């Protein structure tokens, strides 16, 4: 008995999402993006589970997805706390910042030169002038040039 076509295709979609998330985890250095990738993997799993649920014609898979959602929420909360802690220690969200924990005599692995700031200057929207220019607090955080 063949799989229903929809189930098959949904499984493939789930696999693609999972693999995309995996590649993201493996490559990206920003801790936040790494967690986004992890969530993407979870999405792939969810799609798979729902597809199997449909295949079997019951709600077991869907119930599992509910738990996946729960765990993802917990994970996000705790993980973000840890990310914040890590950030408060290093001042960076860089996963590679923690390679300083290696043994003293082992050379740095990630020593590639970081690229200078992008030459692309963003084009910020121009608002029509209305009223007077608000006074700027010079001591405040510098205006971000890029998000």
């Amino acid at each position, binding site marked *: 008995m063949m*799989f229903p076509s929809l189930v098959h295709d949904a499984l493939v979609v789930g696999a693609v999402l999972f693999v995309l998330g995996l*590649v993201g985890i493996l*490559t990206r250095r920003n801790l936040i993006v790494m967690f986004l990738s992890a969530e993407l993997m979870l999405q792939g799993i969810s799609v798979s589970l729902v597809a199997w649920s449909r295949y079997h014609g019951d709600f077991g898979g869907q119930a599992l997805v*509910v738990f996946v959602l729960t765990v993802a929420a917990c994970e996000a909360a705790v993980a973000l706390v840890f990310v914040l802690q890590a950030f408060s220690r290093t001042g960076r969200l860089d996963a590679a910042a923690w390679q300083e924990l290696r043994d003293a005599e082992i050379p740095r692995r990630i020593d590639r030169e970081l*690229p200078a700031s992008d030459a692309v200057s963003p084009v910020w929207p121009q608002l029509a002038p209305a009223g007077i220019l608000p006074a700027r607090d010079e001591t405040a955080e510098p205006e971000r040039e890029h998000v």
Partner: protein
Amino acid sequence: MIAALLPTGTTPLLVAAIAAGTASLWLLLPQASGAGGRTGSLGGFFGGRTGLVGIVLGLAALAGLALAGRRLGGLGEEAAFQLVALVAIVGGAATVVTRSPVYSAIWFALALAGVAGVLLVLGAQFLGVATIVVYAGAILVMFLFVLMLAQPTGMAPYDRVSNEPLLAAIAGGVLLALLTTSIGRLSADPPACCTIPSRADAMNAAPSAPRADNTVPGVAAAPVAAAVVGAADPDALSADPVARLGRELFGRHLLAVEAAGLLLLVALIGAIAVVSRGEEAGTAERGTR
């Protein structure tokens, strides 16, 4: 060996699509701007030739995937599924390859929308909505909040490089090939363990049906229960699915639901505890600098 693994039919197309997708990912992932000036990313739309090639390859991969897909039922269902699947995959890929984490998060929201659509098409209405609510509404906002808190100055240098993109892309490609191939093979010839019993078999197995209550969870119970409700027919799920999911959750999985609730509470308390203690440590450390 690969040839032996390949099933008949659409698989070469699938493999080609996966290969194209792998290459596309590699090309699109943020790289250090070396001598070649590879600045291409979705962040700086088509800013370089490699980015363009990557996007073209990615589109080709999507097309291949779509072509390799099975013919679905009606035109509406097929179109809807392909649309939401496309949104999910494109969103996911963009999440991974976008350099700016904020954009990454926004692309992730798009991917979530696609996933929610897929879930809806698959007949899991509650989950589709819940995904949007929980992820896009809560988790993603939290991520963005942290991002804004941690990186007020925008994109950091380390966002512009990625770690072993080629190896990671190849690993992902191989994994995807394995998964899709096995899905294809399973679909063509499901093993005995996963064969859905026919309605007649289910009737024969009726004496054991009372075991399929919430006191005896188990692998064997699921198909039997499914057979009793006649769920082998996909349409059987469509009748009042949210209420039945609720019954399933608070019937068979009541204990697990309670445990999940407890887990949420513990995670909440833990997060608060850690962040409050870490604040002290962090301020102390910063004070010494």
